[in-house]
């Protein structure tokens, strides 16, 4: 990894909670790649690997690629109650929380083309949509968003990269569960949107570094594909 991009260089002045730790399994070649050309409508992963991809990701891919309403129903059954619970934790009453859940789930359907399992888990992707919606509803503001990376018609799925990202997310969840109650409370408050940036200071040691590396690989893959498409 380019030393200039080492996560250690992030915000030397302000490093506190949620530090991005550099990872030991950080090299781009630490996992096998299985490049394959596949039309977007026909995402078929080898059987062995598809068994390891989470149900949630498989449902989301079916929604994205086949506009599969049954898979969307499963996503709804899984995420809607959790999302409602999450939104209610921020102090939003049940009825208004359901309005937000409704709008977020409809956005999941309409924005499905933007979902890239090499860069995000379904839960992270939905989290991001939900926070935007809440900012819009509660503060009447639009959160400025980074430029979307263009995805083209053809997209190849790299099951090993998807699985590796899911494993990193599992590790992160476990780390969250093993935090001391006070620390965990701070982390949850931060992501629930209850702390200002200056309040987000306490060290928690969340292992965000490895997951960041995985997402970086997903970005590199996307850039690489876009280059191939432009050159072909």
């Amino acid at each position, binding site marked *: 990894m380019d030393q200039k991009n080492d*996560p250690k260089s992030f915000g030397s002045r302000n490093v506190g*909670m949620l530090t991005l730790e550099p990872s030991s399994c950080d090299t781009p070649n630490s996992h096998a790649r299985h490049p394959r050309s596949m039309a977007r409508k026909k995402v078929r992963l080898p059987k062995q690997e598809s068994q390891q991809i989470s149900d949630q990701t498989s449902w989301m891919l079916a929604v994205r690629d086949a506009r599969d309403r049954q898979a969307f*129903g499963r996503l*709804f059954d899984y995420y*809607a*109650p959790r999302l409602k619970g*999450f939104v209610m934790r921020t102090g939003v009453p049940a009825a208004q929380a359901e309005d937000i859940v409704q709008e977020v789930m409809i956005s999941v359907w309409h924005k499905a083309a933007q979902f890239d399992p090499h860069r995000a888990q379904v839960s992270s992707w939905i989290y991001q949509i939900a*926070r935007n919606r809440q900012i819009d509803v509660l503060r009447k503001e639009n959160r*400025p968003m980074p430029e979307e990376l263009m995805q083209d018609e053809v997209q190849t799925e790299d099951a090993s990269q998807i699985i590796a990202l899911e494993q990193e997310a599992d590790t992160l969840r476990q780390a969250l569960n093993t935090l001391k109650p006070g620390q965990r409370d701070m982390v949850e408050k931060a992501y629930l949107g209850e702390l200002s940036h200056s309040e987000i200071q306490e060290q928690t040691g969340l292992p965000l570094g490895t997951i960041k590396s995985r997402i970086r690989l997903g970005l590199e893959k996307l850039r690489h594909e876009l280059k191939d498409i432009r050159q072909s």
Partner: protein
Amino acid sequence: MTSITHHISPPLLAAYAAGTLPEPYALVVASHISMCDDCRAALGAHEAAGGAVMESSAAQAVSDDLKARVFDGLDIAPVAGPVYQKSGVFPAPVMEALKGKPPKWKSLGFGVRQSVISRSAAGSVRLLYIPGGQAVPEHSHNGLELTLVLQGAFADEDGRFGVGDLEIADDDVQHTPMAEVGDACICLAATGAPLRFASWMPRLFQPLFRI
């Protein structure tokens, strides 16, 4: 874009992911991420943490008709707003804030220009144009100041800031940035409270060439 060396700090990125960052700062952060894959990946990591918190929230049963209401909404195409893209040195979030129009520059003297994008109680965000070799005007501000370089470069006590670099300055930081000789330096700068023009306008008439 491996030349970017000054990135968004983890607390700022976490606050952006959670949506608690005031809009002027969020615009600078979104602009930096548009230019920096490292911070885009780091944002993804924070979103994964947010997703984990969401997913581990105690599930609340939803109303019987919610699923039907959601399915009813699937066939109604959302009203798509315009999608803005990077234009010249201005990243997409800046173009969106400018509603796709070129910035309206106002002269501040000595070739220095500014274009205020927004100004509110939450703070202000502006574009600054500093001719090469000239000092960035001194100004007072309350709280955090974020400055993102879009063209050229400037240097101060904290180092050199080139295209894509983000300077994070607390209100106690004394810095006297100088635009590098060569191309004019164009920056996107956000502050926590409106800049106090009265105090810094006269300073423009003081010698600007000091380090």
